[in-house]
């Protein structure tokens, strides 16, 4: 099971959102410049929203300014 920084176990849907955030961040990191402009901007907007989920779950999402969010 996935745990947050306080040692609390995440539920399955919470863990899926964490995976989603990490996948999105990774995609933008590696392929952001290859995406069509609006696809990239929409993905960044989704990343900015999921950052709040990560923060709320105490998963320490770090900073995402370098990705453009």
């Amino acid at each position, binding site marked *: 099971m996935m745990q947050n*920084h*306080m040692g609390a176990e995440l539920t399955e849907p919470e863990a899926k959102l964490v995976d989603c955030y990490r996948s999105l961040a990774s995609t933008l990191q590696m392929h952001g410049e290859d995406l069509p402009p609006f696809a990239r901007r929409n993905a*960044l*907007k989704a*990343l*900015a*929203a999921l*950052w*709040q989920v990560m*923060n*709320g779950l*105490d998963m*320490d999402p770090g*900073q*995402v*300014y370098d990705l*453009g*969010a």
Partner: protein
Amino acid sequence: MPRADIDALQVRKLRNLVEWADVQVPWQSKRLRDAGVTADQIQSLDDLKRIPLMTRDEWMQGQLEAPPYGPILAVPESAAIRYHMTSGTTGKTPIRVLDSMKDWEWIAEMWCYGMWGFGVRPQDALFIAFGYATFIGFWGLHYAGEKMGCLVLPGGAMATDARVKTLVDMGATVVASTPTYALRMAQEARALGMDLASGPVKRLILSGEPAGSIPATKKLIEEQWGAKAADTAGMTELGTIMIFECESQPGGTHIIEDHYIEEVLDPDSGDPVGYGELGERVVTSFGRGFIPVLRYRTRDFVVRVPGSSCTCGRTFDIYDGGIRGRVDDMKLVRGTNVYPRAVESIVREHAEIDEFQIHLFTADGIRDEIEVLIEVPDPAVDVDRLLESLGRDLADAHEGLRFGVARADDGTLPRFELKAKRLVDERIVIGSEGERRGQT
């Protein structure tokens, strides 16, 4: 969340913030290094006091030296999506800020804390009585409303009568405004022959002025709207709110402690004050990475009490009475301290007063005088008795200081949409304020 967990969370976030500021902002890095502070040294909240305090004057000076934003940005300007500035009501150089897409999601998130905590839900219709310009004001609340799934009714660029008609016609259940403007809209509704108290509005979210936590003002607003009112407070320097009043209305505002560290210090010595003591708010914010804010002196007076003093179940501590006033608000009149908030709390005990102004002036070229001007539109009111009663109440609350109280013609005193400025100081100043207080 138990206090020990809040502390642990804050320490970890503080360490990350110090590291971010140190690496990304040379100006911050120098301040931290000069104080001998590095991120890896942050082990407990006791280490917070080693971080230098930051002032608005430093921020403004930085802007003047490196316009337009100063040396405080952690990210290139090109990463920003929005620009805002302080309201300018103090007459000082406005603080200019930038935020990214992620920062704006966070700004809205903080307003979501406040709105949800006060009982706002997705099925609500939210009317925002706000001008939507460069002042950040209720922008974050607008996005929070959308995020929560409310129907957002933007009330920008409208005259007061149009706002009142719109919010009634559209069935708004929640209204956001300054406390002053909530009263102004109620006045307008009366003039239009509309009874707000029997309308659909159930909640008012107040911000922008300390009056949202003045019991007499709040009571007046709640009576005139037939709705519950809750105080919130935010700052452009942080982008959003830091404190909110929950649905239990404990007579104060919860601090959002998983996103901020709030200290309360003696404004003169800088030493921490305990629960129940008046001091100055100093804030550290974890949310806005574009402009890292460490130990910012807000100049707000607050009294912190434990979260357990509220029945809502939140463990976040509370500022009893919200923002009690500004360090800079105090006026010395013939040796007596006068706070505009204290005057307002007395004036608002008299519901028949529609608007008021505090006027300070110099009599005979040497003597400070204080006068309160009031508008009383109802012809049935015994004005002479009201003037006498109000003057006596004001004097009793101010060590016997003599207040002039006079009636102003209806509609002649200024009305405000944003932050009200009801104190007009036209005294001839001899020496500095410190000298006037005998402090130099």
